[in-house]
């Protein structure tokens, strides 16, 4: 059975929508994240929000949730600020509340306002839960995506592999790097591993510690580790910190590293004296 409040809201729907539009104008999209969006998109979003709230009045909770869920997906996808929507819902409460107090006597009003609170709380809870749930999902997907591009091991020549490191290295990534490194060395029967830190924004003692440990482990499985891509400012901070990389062969660029690795595996890249004539090119 539908409550009196809801019936009341359905009956006065147009009136409330109009009033709400006036007052939530200033609330919705006041944050900078929202105001940079084009006006017509803001307007469209407002209209959709109005319909999410008012068109669902007649629905049961299950189908209402589905509508709210779609709306929350859109909020996340387009980067809206959910608190603005919740604030404007609270504004709606004030409007309806005021109207109810004009229409009913005090005793009835207390009952009705309770009902209104219940309905509104349900809306807010649904919206925030769906929003949070969606956020969690996005986060989980991003985590997986990040993990996938985290630490690839690339075989460049026979017995030589490269591991380019990109981005911040935290404890979790460090252990994954180690794992990929050792597995990859065994799999590719590598003798030399080049760790390229061009993409690492900063090397502090922890990052250095992880790299040193990784290279020790590499040595244990019978390969050698070369550290390449040390930018000048990183080199200076490493010296300032007093980190001893004396046991490391280091090269400034990946190119020099590959050359050194070829030397270590007793190979050389040679340029052919003359292009091979004949064949297809008469």
């Amino acid at each position: 059975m539908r409550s009196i409040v809801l019936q009341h809201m359905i009956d006065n729907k147009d009136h409330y929508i109009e009033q709400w539009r006036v007052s939530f104008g200033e609330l919705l999209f006041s944050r900078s994240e929202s105001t940079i969006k084009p006006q017509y998109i803001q307007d469209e979003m407002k209209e959709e929000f109005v319909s999410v709230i008012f068109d669902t009045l007649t629905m049961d909770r299950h189908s209402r949730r589905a509508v709210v869920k779609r709306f929350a997906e859109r909020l996340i996808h387009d980067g809206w600020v959910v608190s603005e929507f919740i604030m404007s819902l609270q504004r709606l409460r004030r409007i309806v509340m005021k109207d109810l107090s004009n229409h009913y006597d005090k005793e009835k009003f207390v009952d009705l306002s309770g009902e209104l609170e219940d309905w509104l709380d349900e809306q807010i809870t649904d919206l925030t839960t769906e929003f949070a749930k969606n956020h969690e999902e996005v986060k989980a997907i991003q985590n997986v995506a990040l993990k996938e591009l985290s630490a690839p091991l690339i075989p460049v020549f026979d017995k030589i592999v490269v591991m380019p490191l990109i981005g911040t290295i935290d404890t979790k990534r460090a252990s994954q790097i180690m794992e990929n490194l050792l597995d990859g060395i065994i799999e590719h029967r590598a003798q030399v591993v080049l760790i390229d830190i061009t993409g690492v924004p900063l090397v502090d003692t922890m990052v250095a510690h992880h790299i040193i440990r990784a290279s020790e482990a590499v040595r244990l499985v019978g390969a050698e580790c070369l550290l390449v891509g040390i930018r000048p400012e990183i080199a200076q901070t490493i010296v300032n910190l007093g980190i001893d990389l004396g046991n490391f062969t280091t090269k400034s660029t990946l190119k020099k590293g590959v050359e050194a690795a070829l030397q270590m595996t007793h190979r050389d890249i040679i340029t052919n004296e003359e292009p091979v004539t004949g064949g297809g090119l008469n």
Partner: protein
Amino acid sequence: MSNHSCIEIANEWGIVSARQAGRELSKEIGFGSVDQARITTAISELARNIYLYTEIGKIDLEEISDNHKNGKVRGIKVVASDKGPGIENLRDVMIDGFTTSGGLGAGLPGVKRLMDEFDIESIPGEGTTITTIKWLR
């Protein structure tokens, strides 16, 4: 001074946001890329100490200026403070290679070398405050 920010270090991501803020502020003040790297590395070390050894702490970043011989000099002040267990023997932690966590033990002496001024205050059982400054030359 208007340029002031405070970052709470409660988890590993706090370290990242602290050094991000540090990099931005030092760039704004006008430090070159090498000094930017030094400052961010120092912040990273200090923040990591907070993360490793205490429950919660904060990093305060501030733009400062001082009158030197050759006129006004700008700089960045980094204050790392926590209410952790404190440091029993301050002399030990400033020795290269001293560590209680199995790390490299280069953190605090390293920070001292990376920055221009370094001051550490610690009361066992109450907490630690480390103040460092880098001047723009």
